[in-house]
């Protein structure tokens, strides 16, 4: 920064917010959870259980069954039986009504699910309560309505379901990712075997309870908890017609290789390194809010996070100052505290990875800035961090950190911003901030990413298709486009 800053504001005020914790008892957790196969909770064949712990307190929350190859096989068999015997024979409107029911029960049990999500994964209760859970319910609600309307979704073409879908989901939005996978699969007439991430299985297991409550026919949804080998068993099982994976690019590539030569359909939703581009004619205070939302939301554990900031040089100093001020009001702490903005890092491993990058960035010569927020003693914590004066070739500007760390670069012209934004093997999302409409359309047209937010960021809706270009994966989830992943879409053929 050029000149020394004067006239600073003090956000560590005399008047502090008292802790306002949500009660963990609202989660109503069992001591242990079994696998959910064929409509019932069953013990794992190998008799093994693993612990799921809270990343903020390191306490064990529950024991969870570990599914081995035999359990996965049982689940696929149940899914196949349910598909042929029940689900594909149901009137589509009846399928829809099951999904409507599930949506309603989710709304009823929202608080319980939100507290569970924050306990198990570390995200602030404010986010799980106000963002995750409403989206979960709306995903089921939205897709419920498609079940008997598929003939309208692909004009002139016929559709039919694929059969059994194997789905593997990550730990950053556990219940929301389960909704993104299960709702469209079921609406389009498929049955499901799904594996939640091993560090965040609990909300998926509660979803199993809700599925029972909704009286969904047995075997339509099967939930098998476990780690990498469980996922591999699903991917390799010969009677699975389709694989949907959300997770790291590394594992996504492995799955792509494993499925080579098979007829299995595949969609991948992988990593990202999105750039938020802020032009000098942007509404700056609102851009700051979008930047903060883009990288500090969910501790930065977001595939579409705006983890790079490209700011036009003429306003860089002003913008960075506003950004630092705004960061000064972010509260890092107990995920169950309603005032927490940034919760716990999901696991010790992830925290180590992030801390590794903090060292890398400093070694590379970028200028690190962290707020002086207080951090709790126990648990996995990382304060919101900026790397200023980053350059395009720094590793912190290229590699996905998956934490609350923002790499800041400047640019001078529109073309330079677009080029830098696209100069990455990833292509999941991007942000464009300008008050000029024509420019917003011009730039968003040229960003090579599956989701471009203009004058906003991290907005999700079940009606809005989501997915990446390039190494961020392929296929879309949500909206009319998202249905395609779970259907055979067949041309009428013949003469016209």
């Amino acid at each position: 920064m050029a000149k020394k800053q004067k006239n600073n504001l003090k956000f560590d005020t005399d008047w502090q917010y008292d802790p306002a914790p949500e009660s963990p008892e609202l989660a109503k957790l069992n001591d242990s959870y079994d696998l959910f196969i064929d409509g019932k909770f069953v013990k794992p064949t190998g008799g093994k259980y693993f612990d799921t712990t809270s990343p903020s307190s390191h306490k064990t929350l529950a024991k969870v069954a570990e599914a081995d190859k035999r359990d996965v096989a049982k689940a696929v068999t149940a899914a196949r039986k349910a598909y042929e015997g029940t689900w594909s024979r149901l009137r589509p409107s009846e399928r829809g009504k099951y999904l409507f029911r599930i949506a309603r029960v989710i709304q009823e049990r929202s608080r319980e699910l939100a507290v569970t999500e924050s306990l198990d994964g570390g995200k602030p209760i404010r986010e799980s309560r106000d963002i995750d859970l409403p989206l979960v319910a709306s995903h089921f609600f939205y897709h419920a309505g498609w079940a008997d309307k598929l003939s309208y979704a692909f004009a002139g073409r016929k559709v039919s379901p694929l059969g059994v879908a194997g789905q593997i989901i990550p730990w950053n939005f556990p219940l929301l990712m389960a909704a993104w996978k299960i709702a469209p699969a079921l609406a389009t007439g498929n049955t499901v075997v799904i594996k939640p991430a091993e560090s965040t299985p609990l909300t998926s297991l509660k979803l199993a309870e809700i599925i029972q409550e909704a009286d969904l026919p047995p075997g339509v949804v099967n939930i098998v908890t476990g780690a990498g080998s469980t996922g591999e068993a699903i991917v390799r099982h010969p009677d699975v017609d389709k694989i949907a994976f959300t997770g790291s690019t590394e594992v996504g590539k492995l799955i792509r290789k494993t499925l080579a030569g098979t007829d299995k359909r595949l969609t991948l939703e992988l990593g990202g390194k999105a750039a938020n581009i802020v032009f000098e004619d942007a509404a700056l205070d609102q851009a700051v809010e979008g930047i903060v939302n883009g990288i500090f939301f969910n501790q930065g554990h977001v595939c579409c996070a705006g983890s790079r900031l490209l700011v036009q040089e003429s306003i860089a100093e002003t913008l960075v100052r506003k950004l630092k001020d705004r960061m000064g009001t972010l509260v890092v702490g107990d995920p169950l505290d309603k005032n927490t903005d940034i919760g716990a890092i999901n696991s010790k491993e992830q925290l180590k990875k992030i801390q590794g990058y903090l060292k890398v960035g400093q070694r590379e010569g970028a200028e690190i800035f962290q707020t002086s927020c207080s951090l709790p003693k126990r648990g996995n914590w990382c304060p919101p961090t900026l790397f200023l004066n980053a350059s395009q070739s720094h590793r912190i500007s290229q590699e996905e950190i998956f934490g609350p760390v923002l790499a800041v670069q400047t640019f001078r012209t529109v073309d330079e911003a677009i080029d830098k934004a696209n100069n990455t093997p990833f292509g999941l999302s991007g942000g464009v901030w300008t008050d000029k409409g024509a420019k917003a359309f011009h730039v968003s047209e040229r960003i090579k990413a599956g989701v471009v937010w203009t004058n906003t960021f991290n907005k999700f809706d079940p009606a809005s298709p989501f997915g990446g270009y390039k190494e961020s994966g392929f296929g879309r989830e949500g909206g009319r486009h998202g249905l395609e992943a779970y259907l055979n879409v067949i041309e009428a053929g013949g003469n016209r």
Partner: protein
Amino acid sequence: MSLSATLANSPPIDSVGVAERVARFTTRSIKKSSKMEALKLALSMIDLTTLEGKDTEDRVRRLCYKARHLHVDLPELPTVAAVCVYPTMVKVAREELKDCGVQVAAVATSFPSGQDDLSLRIRQTKGAVRDGAQEIDMVISRGRFLAGDYQYVSDEIVAVKEACGEAHLKVILETGELQTLENVRKASDIAIDAGADFIKTSTGKVQPAATMEVTLVMLEAIRDHFQETGKIVGMKPAGGISNSKIAIRYLVMLRETLGNRWLTPDLFRFGASSLANDLLMQIVKQSSGVYQSSNYFSLD
């Protein structure tokens, strides 16, 4: 700064983005001792107001009494910041509030419309100050502003500021008539540059009065001017802040936008009338644990 430079620096505002930032303030959960602190702080920031055609000297006397004796049963309550009245009532208010720390504020400049010759408005201001008003709340000429005559608006504020002498000047933008947040920002920039000590949202006579969105835009204008020039300006939302819950949200917004220095009645006021009793009810509820009834809190 020259007026054209001020106007050129006035930034675009995205109202959807502003609404999102405001929503974050409303989800803060203020409990226990931090709630009690906030309630008392809010109480100390109130400009107890009576601005009705039917005001009488007796009405004003009773309001001043209430300002000094908020509630019989509660010891150690702060006093409100000020009493705000029409210029004809300033002498009475000054007499009643002698030596008690509560300021006397007068609305002037042909409040609320401001549709009058500048000379008359200046004379009214000087008269109120002579009678003892320590603060003057003026209104800008919204018609001129909306017609693009920003120079006029800037000049009238400069003139009234001069007429105030030692008294503090609050400039009412009447945000309900300005309609867009960009207009609110522009008017704030003009007012701050022209010498306002405080910028204020509304007269309370036009709907909508204060909203969190316009307040945020005004607080951000104050922040930007402070960081650029070191100038310190206060802020007063008026009208529509009818209960403690809303008032606390405003304090959260103030805290997270301007920080420690502005969390004082010297730099932030609530223009409200029924808010005081709701704060008192909440204070009693916080200490007793029991929900209150308005029957136990005097009207004035």
